């Protein structure tokens, strides 16, 4: 291992006198860019700690989260936030395509595991929500009650993760499914006929 082929003119590198089992070491300096980036990363780190933790230039994790929540509520719910939880609110949502599609999104994230991807029901877990038969519901606001509190016999759990506006949206979406009649699992259709829900309230598209 004593003979090296120096095809790249490495002869200008100076060897140290070290030799370990035939392994030698050059006395080359550390590349300048190595120092530069290393020192740069240290400077960045100090700067980062000072800016993030010792000044208020950057909002804290909580501040930035709360800010985003507030901004998102405006986008998602708009004037719904000022409406009391009643049938009018649900009908207003039903008359608004965007809010109704939000209701569908909430439904897909929360309800489909028991009521099926198309709300067609899953045998033994959740009823078909698209037919005209109802078990726990006689009027629209009963849907809201079911989402908030679940059923008394615990066959449907309370959906505690949803806020009030989300509950209204998902309840309105469920109400809108009535009569779409997607074929559900085999077996008898359960429940009673109930009076029809009032017509959705369609508002002017200026707001």
């Amino acid at each position, binding site marked *: 291992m004593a003979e090296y082929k120096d095809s790249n003119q490495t002869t200008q590198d100076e060897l140290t006198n070290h030799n370990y*089992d035939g392994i030698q070491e050059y006395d080359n300096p550390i590349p300048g860019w*190595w120092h530069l980036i*290393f020192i740069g990363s240290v400077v960045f780190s100090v700067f980062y700690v000072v800016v993030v933790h010792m000044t208020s230039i950057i909002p804290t994790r909580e501040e930035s*989260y709360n800010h*985003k929540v507030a901004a998102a509520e405006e*986008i998602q719910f708009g004037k719904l936030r000022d409406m009391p939880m009643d049938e009018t609110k649900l009908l207003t949502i039903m008359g608004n395509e965007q809010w109704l599609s939000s209701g569908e999104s909430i439904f897909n994230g929360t309800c489909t595991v028991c009521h099926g991807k198309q709300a067609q029901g899953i045998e033994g877990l959740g009823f078909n929500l698209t037919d005209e038969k109802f078990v726990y519901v006689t009027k629209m606001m009963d849907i809201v009650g079911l989402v908030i509190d679940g059923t008394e016999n615990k066959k449907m759990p309370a959906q505690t993760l949803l806020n009030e506006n989300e509950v209204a949206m998902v309840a309105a979406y469920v109400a809108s499914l009535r009569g779409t009649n997607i074929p559900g699992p085999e077996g008898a259709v359960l429940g009673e006929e109930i009076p029809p829900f009032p017509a959705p309230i369609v508002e002017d598209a200026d707001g």
Partner: protein
Amino acid sequence: MAEQAAQETNGGATKHPDQSGLESFVYDDNIVRMFSWATVIWGIVAFLVGVIIAVELAFPEAGMGISFLSFGRLRPLHTNAAIFAFAGNGIFAAIYYSTQRLCKARMWSDTLSKLHFWGWQLIIVSAALTLPFGITQGKEYAELEWPIDIAIAVVWLVFFGGNFLMTLIHRRERHIYVALWFYIATIVTVTMLHVFNNLWIPAGLVYLFQNGEMPSAELALKSYPVYAGVQDALMQWWYGHNAVAFFLTTPFLGLMYYFLPKAAERPVFSYKLSIIHFWSLIFIYIWAGPHHLHYTALPEWASTVGMVFSVMLWMPSWGGMINGLMTLRGAWDRVASDPILKFFVVGVTFYGMSTFEGPLLSVKSVNSLSHYTDWTIAHVHSGVLGWNGFMTFGMLYWMMPRLFQTKLHSKKLCAMHFWLGTAGMVLYILSIYAAGITQGLMWRAFDESGRLTYPAFIETVTVLIPMYWIRVVGGLLYLSGAIVGLINLFQTWRSRPAKYEEVVHYAPALSKGYDNDPKAKSRLHANTALGDAGDKFLQGDWHRALERKPVKFTIWVLVAVAIGGIVEAIPMFLVSSNVPTISTVEPYTPLELAGRDIYVAEGCYNCHSQMIRPFLWETMRYGEYSKPGEFVYDHPFQWGSRRIGPDLAREGGLRTHLWHYRHFKNPADVSESSIMPRYTWLLNNKINFDEIQGRVDSMALLGVPYGEMLKDNNSVENAKEQALVIALELEDQGGPAAQETMDKKVIALIAYLQRMGTDISKEPAPTDDVVDAEVSP
């Protein structure tokens, strides 16, 4: 006995016949041959288990509903086999081969070498016999239960560390080479990490002391970490990150520093760089652990420390890459024709890539996208397959023909292994990067009405399946490469001589009073004492003197690696504002605790996190983000690191018992195209109520206020009552008769699931101490 063996084998002390003061010695290559074979064989096992679990993600029925084949139980076997069996035996082979030659001394004790070898293999076998059967501590890469932990500590520190250090002390080479520095750092730090992350209370022994009997083998092997929640998470990722640093990085840098210049027949590029990158690497690495916990309930200051130290780690890591690649200057023409050098070049290049990616992923904003996704999986596989795997194979191809005193059977097969492995890695890594980034972006996507675009978690899973199949192909290629390697090395072994030649080496013993190291002279003309001292320090000659003193060197290493851990851990344990308490958070009921232990045993944390981060897209999907005070009774914490399934932090109460029951029986029944395995055995296996008291008593020893539950087997009665209540509710919801389910494991697990994350929203009980309780914002 060890001393006796040392006398027999290290009988090198016999003087050279010509009385010139030279001592003769023979290297112990047999132990290196044993470790080398173990490396290849365990490597194939690790890769095979990897392929199996990769198939399970693409095609969940592959697990066939068999408990010990389920993903949650096999994944720890895969990671432990890859890290501790494959890479572990690989570094031992490298260390035993190179240390003897770098020290001009046989290993100090052949007995310790053999104890180390067989002890380590026994540990691996016991891992294979426990992990698939749900015997686990539930902390990633530290899953092995307490008796095995003790065995690891003894084998590692006493057999391996002791033998190594004694060999250093009895060396015949004046200075210790940079490879040995890295080995020292490995031994010292892994010991420290292993011990402090594995402080536990064995539940079986607690029961035995209190009742004079052992209710079950399961409880006998069960232990709870002394840390809970946030503190446990900090300790675990201090350990987990530094297992990467000091098990998969430093020993492999040592390996590189010996085998790469040997194979390239070139001097190492820069001795100065070796010094500075060694010390900066080991000092900085230890701080970086908290970057695994960005945006979790870990306090933000700790997260920041983890991030900035990871960024500062970039250049120290690249120092190793530079020294590796630059050493090949003048040998590049040989890389084209020599597959061994190809393995090393690709290995070092992958090291460079993953140590750039590491700091990148530790930047909080990048991490918010990558965390919990396959991006992390791609990152670790580029490290382990590329850096650890290829460095190991390069070393084996160079070393094993020499150990067998013959030529490598086939250079062609060696090249074939290289190309199979490379192609496998490219397929694996690219597909899994794509999977990770896809899923990360889907989780955070909002539609124009401000709602999640993909509200159903399952949508973000099914889209990955094609990429999971590509990963399977990649894994198969890498595995076939290793099998080609095994055949090639086996054929090489077959052409060995009938008897190995024992080459006798001669070297003088180290004389005392050596003082020939270069002495720096100040280059400054100012001649102030301080200036001169500073300039001498900068010239680095003091380090040359340190290289003659392995014990002193080891102590300095210990100091360097201890600082980061101490600075991060002590405030976390002592400053109460780091974990503000929540008055409504109460201990788990005995049944819930038993259910939690099932959650741990089944390895649910391998696919489900329990940590909601403060992002809108997380809280909209999973509910209020997680608070530190919610985890104070979680021994161990189960925050997870990858969401193959959804987060479960607020799972409690969201679904009915019946839903969970049917989901465990067959997930696809209630969640179409779910890739979760069936857990039918939970429906059939019984809860061992007798041992629940042992579990509760152990928790109480750790400070969990169980009060009345500790008396007269109250826990057992309480658990039975709660199980009956849940079984009756299940029956009422349309499930099987309560008589059938009330003593089954699934009931305990449901009890735990229905509790998860619910305490925070409870009404505080009207007690006196509410005033003292602080609720975090």
